[in-house]
């Protein structure tokens, strides 16, 4: 089945609105909230949590008996997580990316690893019947990538997957989007919306993931996003109007498909179009 990433570049353009409304209408899909720094799908999907799992990450520990302070590990570390001098070698566990390279280059067998918890993954059934999995990164942690990778590993091929991605185009977004069959860019007709969307377009093209665009808060702002899509030959799959009713529903934890049948039509037709495109390009 199709794996669909919903992403945006700019925050607050409507990734959660699009992914959650689609998930609410299609209860045999699985929704993954990979925005682990600020997950919010569970607020709208209101799942009955069936399980949670800790996510831990390795960090290096130096054996003072064996370490000769040669500095090989510190020179190797791409993330500057080890400092080595003639009198000491110290590791900075918050900066470490757990690549385990330092132990490989250590000639004195002085490096072992310990684990520390960086977050949690929750899973459950939403009030719409759709399964929801979401991750939560601990405050102060640098990278949610290990949590996102684990969320992605938890789901099989038998259901359609909808991924509520993190904003931006950094490592966590790449992890959320990797190996997806299709991506939906949710943008808004504002200069910031277009500017950040351009980076997402570049990222998806580099990753060779086919995509189309959804314009949220349509008829607000200016026409730049439409001009950009035309110039770049990007398909605009749908538009969601700038509508106070959506904001009001959102502010009470409701989805717009629950409040207004006209939106049920908009999102169902979006879902059908995505699967039509999926069949065309992937046969899935």
């Amino acid at each position: 089945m199709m794996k669909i990433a919903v992403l945006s570049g700019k925050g607050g353009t409507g990734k959660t609105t699009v992914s959650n409304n689609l998930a609410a209408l299609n209860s045999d899909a699985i929704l993954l909230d990979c925005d682990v720094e600020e997950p919010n799908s569970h607020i709208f999907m209101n799942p009955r949590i069936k399980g949670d799992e800790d996510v831990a990450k390795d960090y290096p520990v130096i054996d003072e008996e064996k370490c000769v302070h040669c500095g090989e590990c510190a020179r190797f570390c791409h993330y500057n997580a080890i400092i080595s001098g003639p009198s000491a070698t110290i590791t900075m566990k918050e900066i470490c990316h757990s690549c385990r390279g330092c132990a490989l280059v250590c000639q004195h067998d002085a490096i072992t690893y310990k684990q520390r918890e960086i977050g949690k993954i929750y899973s459950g059934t939403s009030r719409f019947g759709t399964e929801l999995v979401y991750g939560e990164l601990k405050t102060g942690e640098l990278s949610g990538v290990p949590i996102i990778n684990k969320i992605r590993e938890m789901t099989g091929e038998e259901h359609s997957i909808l991924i509520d991605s993190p904003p931006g185009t950094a490592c966590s977004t790449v992890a959320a989007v990797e190996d997806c069959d299709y991506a939906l860019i949710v943008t808004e007709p504002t200069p910031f919306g277009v500017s950040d969307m351009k980076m997402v377009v570049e990222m998806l093209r580099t990753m060779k993931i086919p995509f189309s665009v959804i314009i949220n808060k349509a008829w607000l702002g200016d026409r730049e996003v439409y001009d950009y899509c035309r110039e770049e030959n990007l398909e605009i799959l749908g538009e969601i109007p700038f509508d106070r009713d959506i904001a009001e529903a959102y502010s009470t934890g409701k989805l717009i498909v629950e409040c207004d049948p006209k939106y049920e039509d908009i999102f169902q037709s979006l879902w059908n179009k995505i699967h039509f495109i999926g069949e065309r390009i992937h046969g899935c």
Partner: protein
Amino acid sequence: MIIALCSTGDAMESPVDERFGRAAYFLFYNTITSEMVSVINEAKTAKGGAGALAVQLLVNNKAELLIAPEVGPQALDALKKFKIPAFKQGENTTPELAVLAWGNGSLEMIKDPGNKGLHKV
């Protein structure tokens, strides 16, 4: 003693840098020989862990004392482990003036971390 200083340029008369981890240059001033070695701070453009990389640079250049605007929590921990005390450069506008002020005993020791970088715990 070798004193490390944060500078925007490569001379003792250059304006001090207002940042530690991402300072443009580190100047290593030898109080015995009055010699100075300037080093471009490669941590300035590091994606993350600039403070840690800057401490590594200090260790590599055998600094025994640091004069800085302020030092973040991770870097301050690391400096303590390498027994490099840190002093506030305060109102001194150049590394030269900062060294003189340190000589007069008028610089305050940095005991608590200042501006937090990536790791706002």
